[in-house]
């Protein structure tokens, strides 16, 4: 059984908070994983009672898909605790409903636009990290902005390590937002696929920096609030967890 818990945790380890592009593991959102034969229940708690329902719904949906992809899993249940829309979201994610069906009065359309916005921002942030890393290694702006995907691949193969990680992470988002993945495509472009002027790296990096600063600062706010919540300040989370019979083991 313990192996299965590890399997579940591994399966959801790559699920990310869509707004700040960090894993839910790094953000410490998961408070319990319960397995009863093929039934998996994941309990999670967010930094505040008020975290936006739409963002949570994106994460919940991804967790559900990742867990149900395990061959032995028959059912998935989300147990979000101490959140203003916990009941609706737990039901919706558990039953695999669309967001608009769960919140018919408030939701306007589905979440695809939001998912797209976040994916584009994550794409730009990952590109920024890749460029910073390579610039520090001495690659010129003109080189970086003209290099093709296959040439980047060869560089990543040759160097491995951090470059490989950054390049793979970048490519993953590039594919997600639907930019060309062919070997001869210019690798580093804007989120709409438009080439960056060869002498325009400084301006481009300013744009990337803006997106990154914003997301990272928000990530820090999540950590600050999460830490306060764990320390017992903010929304009485521990008490609620106990009242609702949810184990908080795994909490540091």
């Amino acid at each position: 059984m313990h192996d299965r818990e590890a399997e579940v945790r591994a399966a959801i380890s790559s699920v990310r908070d869509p707004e700040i592009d960090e894993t839910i593991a790094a953000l410490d959102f998961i408070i319990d994983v319960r397995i009863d034969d093929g039934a998996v229940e994941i309990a999670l708690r967010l930094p505040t009672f008020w975290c936006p329902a739409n963002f949570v719904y994106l994460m919940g949906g991804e967790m559900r898909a990742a867990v149900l992809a395990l061959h032995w899993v028959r059912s998935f249940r989300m147990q979000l605790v101490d959140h203003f829309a916990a009941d609706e979201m737990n039901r919706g994610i558990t039953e695999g409903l669309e967001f608009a069906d769960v919140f018919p009065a408030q939701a306007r359309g589905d979440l695809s636009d939001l998912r797209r916005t976040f994916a584009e921002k994550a794409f730009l942030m990952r590109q920024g990290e890749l460029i910073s890393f390579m610039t520090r290694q001495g690659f010129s702006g003109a080189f970086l902005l003209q290099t093709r995907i296959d040439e980047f691949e060869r560089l990543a193969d040759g160097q491995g390590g951090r470059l490989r990680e950054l390049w793979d992470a970048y490519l993953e988002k590039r594919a997600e937002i639907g930019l060309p993945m062919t070997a001869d495509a210019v690798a580093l472009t804007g989120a709409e696929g438009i080439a960056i002027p060869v002498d325009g790296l400084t301006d481009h990096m300013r744009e990337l920096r803006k997106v990154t600063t914003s997301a990272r600062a928000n990530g820090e706010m999540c950590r600050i609030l999460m830490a306060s919540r764990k320390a017992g300040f903010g929304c009485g989370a521990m008490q609620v967890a106990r009242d609702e019979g949810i184990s908080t083991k795994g909490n540091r």
Partner: protein
Amino acid sequence: MYVTEKGEKVFVIDAHVHVWDARPENRRNRYGQTFIDTFYGAHVGLTPPNQRWDKERFDYYGAKGAAKDLFEDGYCDMAVMLPVYLRDFYVNGFNTTKLCATLKDLHPEKVVLNGRCDPRDGAMGLDQLEEDFETYKFQGVKLYTAEWNGVSRGYSLKDGFVEPYMEKCRSLGIRNIHVHKGPTTHPLDYDAFDVRDVDVIATNFPDLNFIVDHCGMPRIDDFCFVAGQEPNVYGGLALIPSYIHARPKFFARMMSDLLFWVGPDRLLFGSDYAITSPKWIIEKFMNFEFDDETAQEAGTQLTLDVKRKIMGLNAAKLYDIEVPEMFQLDRAA
């Protein structure tokens, strides 16, 4: 007034303060509790340990408490009050104009009292705005687009019912429109903290000033874009300076981006009192400098003149406050 080590005097306007009542007897429901609990979580996380309050004082500190924290201990020459009602959560409202007025009663010459309105209230709300204006004669109003109001969980400034309120403000002579765009606390699929709706309304009402409180955080990038295009859009910094103790590096990065994209003339200091208090923030901010790389990114160092503008001179312009000569920018510079 803050006096630097060299004896330079800086005029301080805290452009974002509240007097709220979140005591248990005023909470309408669990939302009222969790709302103030979340604020308290931020207070604890951001405030240096030796300056933290206990929860009881945080629930309610009253006008006298605020006067001490702002004007006696907190270096503030003046404070701008921004009411937020949250009647769906609090029986008598959270931070009402009436409650804010109790601080103005104590220090009429130091307090800029603003009103508030909720454009979803339609014709009735317009009458209320006029009535409040008659009573308080404010120069600005606060709009809280993520506030719950009955079945509504938020609205956008692009919504058609907002414009009559802007027309009303214009006709009454209310020039400063504060819009709360801060960390996401509620929205559903549409995003009540989305900043881009400010763009439309700022274009349509070029004679009004739009102060985006919290600079759209965490959408500072979107805010920078909007403010870059619209000369009548200002950044209310509240919350950003609060990072200065717990996350100084992120504070520096946010400030440098804002200075580069928006510039030093359209940013207003705010402590977000009472989530955090001005005393320790101002002490740290006045001593804060960018490293060379950050200054280069920002396009400026945090010079005394830049600080003078942010700490008070910019807000003074918006609110027609006369600032004595000794606080003005260094003429030699």
